Every structure is written in C-alpha cells, then in structure tokens.
C-alpha cells in the first residue's frame, strides 16, 4: 500500500475550550480532525473524572489531527494561541497515511 509521511497531532484540552480551538483550527485552514471523549485524568491540578458530572467545566477532550508535515507549523501556532493560557497537552508524532491526497 502506498503511504505518505504525515504528522499526527494530539491535543488534550479542556472541554469548554473545544469550540474555540476548532474555530481557530478552521481559520488556520485545518479542517480535518477527530474528537475523542476523555473519561478522566491527572495532572498538576490533581485528578479528575467525568463520572456523574453535569457541567462541562471539569472535562477534557482529545483532538486528533492528521496533517501534512509542511502544514504542521501553522497548526501548532493556531493551537498554541488557544491553549496558551489553559491547561492541556499538545503532542506531535510522525506517522504515515493511506490516501495521502486527502490531507
């Protein structure tokens, strides 16, 4: 199978910031991403869990973004402008993709 190099960006961010992040990504021309739910976690601000929660305040989501390497910098800048003041984790991994023409 023919595969092309790409970057897999994973952004774990607070749920109330989700729309702001995706809006910024859209503006930066990043229109492909997938959002995974998160059940809980732990960090410097302690442990948390979505169990029984009504407010979205305490939750996070994981946004996965497969992107061509040359567009990575733009994505990261856009993401950083939102994540900057907020808790959250941004990681980038090398990967290869099928049907690279789609990205």
């Amino acid at each position: 199978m023919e595969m092309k190099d790409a970057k897999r960006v994973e952004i774990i961010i607070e749920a109330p910031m989700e729309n702001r992040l995706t809006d910024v990504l859209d503006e930066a021309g990043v229109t492909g991403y997938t959002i995974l739910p998160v059940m809980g976690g732990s960090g410097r601000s302690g442990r948390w869990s979505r169990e029984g929660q009504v407010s979205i305040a305490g939750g996070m989501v994981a946004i996965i973004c497969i992107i061509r390497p040359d567009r990575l910098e733009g994505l990261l800048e856009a993401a950083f402008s939102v994540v900057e003041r907020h808790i959250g984790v941004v990681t980038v991994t090398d990967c290869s993709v099928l049907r690279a023409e789609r990205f």
Partner: protein
Amino acid sequence: METIFSLAAENLLSPIILFFVLGLGAAFVRSDLSVPEAAAKTLSIYLLFAIGFKGGVSVSNHGVDSTLLLSVLAGLILSFAIPFVAFGLLRTMTRLGTIDAAAVAGHYGSISIVTFVAATSVLQSQGLDSEGYLVAVAAVMEAPAILSALWLVAKFSGSKNAAENAQGTKGLVREILLNGSIVLLVGSFVIGFLSGPKGLADIESFIVAPFKGVLCLFLLDMGLVAGRGLRSSAHHMRPGLILFGVLMPLIGAVAGFVAASLIGLSVGGTVLLMTLSASASYIAVPAAMRVALPEANPSIYLTMSLGITFPFNLTLGIPLYLSIAQAFGG
C-alpha cells in the same frame, strides 16, 4: 425557634437529603458507586424541563402579576451585586488572590437550580404556594454575576494579561446567555405558559408525579460529585473559606429577603428569592470561568459551591430562610 428546629429536622430526614448524604458518604469511603455522566446530564435536563414548564403553567394560571417585572429586575440586580459583596468578604476573610476571589464571587452571584428545586419541594410539603415566574427570575440570575466577576478581575487584578483576556474573551457573553441550562429553563417556561393547564395535563405524569424520585437520584449523584471534590480538595478548604461558604449564603438570603419584601412577594416567593440569592452556581459559571479566567483554581470554586454552600443550603439554609420569611415577611 422551635419551628426552625422541627423544620430542619424534618428536612434532614427527607429522602432528598438522605440520598445526598448517601452520595457524600459513598464518596468519602471511596466506594466505586457512580452515576454515568450521560445519566447525570439527562437528570439535569429533566429537572430544568419540569421546573420550567410548571413555572410557566403556573404563570398562565394566575396571570402575569404586576410584580413579575420587578422580580426579574431584582434578580438582575442581585446577581450583579452579590459578587461585589462576596469579593470584598473573600479578600478580607481569606487569603485568596484577586483572580480566585473574583471567580468564587461570581459563583455566589449566580444560582443553583437544584437548590431552588429543593426549596420548592420544601414549600410544597408545607403547603405554601409561590409565584410561578420565579423560575424565570432564576434563569435571569444565572449570567450577570459572571460579568461582575470579570469586571472585578479587570479592575483589581495586578496581572494585566489576565485582565485583558477577561475582557477580550470573544463571544463569551453570547455563550453565557445562550447556555444550555438557561435556554432550556426559559424555553420550557415559555412553553408551559403557552400550553397552560391543558398542556400540563398532557405531560403531568411525566413531570409532576415522578419528580421527587428523580430529584433523589440527582442528589445522590450530586453527593457523589461533591464528596469526591471535597476529598480531593480538602487541603484548599481553610477555615476562612469554609466560614465564607456558610456566611455568604446567609448574606445573600438577607439581600433576597429585602428585595422580596420591597416587591411584595408571597411568603413562598420570598423563600425562593432568598434561596436563589443564597445559592451558588456549579454548572454554568464554572464553565465560563474555565474559559475566561483559566488562572483561577477550579478546585477552589467548585468545592466551595458544591461541597460547602450547596449542602449548607440544602440542609440548614432552606428551613432557616423559610422560618425567617414566615416570621418577618409575607
């Protein structure tokens, strides 16, 4: 005084409170009991739907009272003003920084709908009526406090950055006003008003009969969440903060009482406006604070609101407000 105690005792043994205590207890002993997030959200939707609709029907029954507008105005003013009192108190009573103090203050200006519902159910068991439109006042009081909190930060925060952001937060006001719980509460209120007693007859066995049982389940869940929050944030709960968490609702209740007396609400209505002023938000405001004041520590405001003030109102506050309203008001 006798009545206060007997009322409080009766209240403390109602299933609603006992299920909250069960949740608290289960969380403290680290039981794995939990309510799925989707279920908790659905219970909350059910409560807003039912309380809004019933409020609307009640207004359509009794006609639009001349006091409606005054009450809405009072709600607006209380929600805007209370955070300033709270902020002042926090800065003197506790060692919280400006941003944390403003964030906590914002919670106390806004309201907790479950506390409101619990008060309604105490009124009911006492055979007391209240103005149906106080549901609309509840909705109106959700948001203004957030703006006060942001203004406090902009004004008092040394960190120019935080202040800037607090103001510059794009679309936040819109987001707050169109918050799901406000839209659902107001929407159901309007629908209840439009469909009137005929509409109520249609869905009565869904929103009236099982209401208290659903509330028990919801309070079980709130107990679990509050308990877990208290357990993991116990170290933040200095005496000053705890004291504030009990004092502030009393101050809020007094403010609510004054407003209700000026407007001329019924005893039941007075209790509800006192309860609204006394209660602190745990859904809408925390979410807004994460967006607008990310530097504020959520462990503090969530634990204050859900772990201290909510249980206080639920158990002692509401009976107390009722006694006051009966003694001095009505």
